[in-house]
């Protein structure tokens, strides 16, 4: 059964350092966006790929962009570098990206990220202003609409501070 929150908590439990980005980050900030996948930004070192495997091993992770749906538990083999990962799991789709258009890489995102607490676990989420930049950089109709919604959320946050 689909459960993006459980997916994120499993990644956190595995000790993977990541920043939640994309549509589900927009949902976390308060958007009505509905997305079919969870996007995270992380550094894909061999150690982090091993942590991802450990985290997802019970949920049949496969590379969803490969016609044969190769198992993530077997590919890429140890020592082979990887840039981005698009995985299908029993809990939903998860994309692991090494950089975000319009903003930058993990270090850049992590420096400004907001920390949210869910069931006692800290999850780092792309800063609202960075997410607006990322959505505008994507430039697709639906991303621009989400950016407008996120700008409204930013305005409401500002108003709440006063």
């Amino acid at each position: 059964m689909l459960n993006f929150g459980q997916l994120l908590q499993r990644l956190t439990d595995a000790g993977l350092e990541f920043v939640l980005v994309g549509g589900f980050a927009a949902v976390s900030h308060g958007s009505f966006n509905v997305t079919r996948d969870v996007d995270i930004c992380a550094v894909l070192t061999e150690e982090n790929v091993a942590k991802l495997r450990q985290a997802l091993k019970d949920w049949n992770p496969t590379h969803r962009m490969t016609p044969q749906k190769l198992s993530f538990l077997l590919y890429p083999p140890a020592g082979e570098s990887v840039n981005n990962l698009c995985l299908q799991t029993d809990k939903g789709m998860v994309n692991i990206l090494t950089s975000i258009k319009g903003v930058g890489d993990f270090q850049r995102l992590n420096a400004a990220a907001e920390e949210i607490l869910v069931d006692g676990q800290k999850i780092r989420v792309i800063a609202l202003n960075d997410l607006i930049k990322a959505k505008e950089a994507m430039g697709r109709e639906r991303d621009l609409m989400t950016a407008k919604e996120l700008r409204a959320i930013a305005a409401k946050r500002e108003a709440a501070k006063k």
Partner: protein
Amino acid sequence: MDNPAQALEEARRAGIDLDLLDANLALSVKERWQQHDAVLELALKLEQAGQTRDAKLRPTASKAD
């Protein structure tokens, strides 16, 4: 980042329901996630139902073919 009043006006003009946005912002992150997953589950079920219906509507090859 923006002029807040202008951002709200642009959102309103784009058709974003600001009252619903307020209701969403009043939820915890966990509640937003749960709400999202429930909506997505329903959307996927409807999509599946539509595909099943469309498959039934497709003409099948006759025995003479």
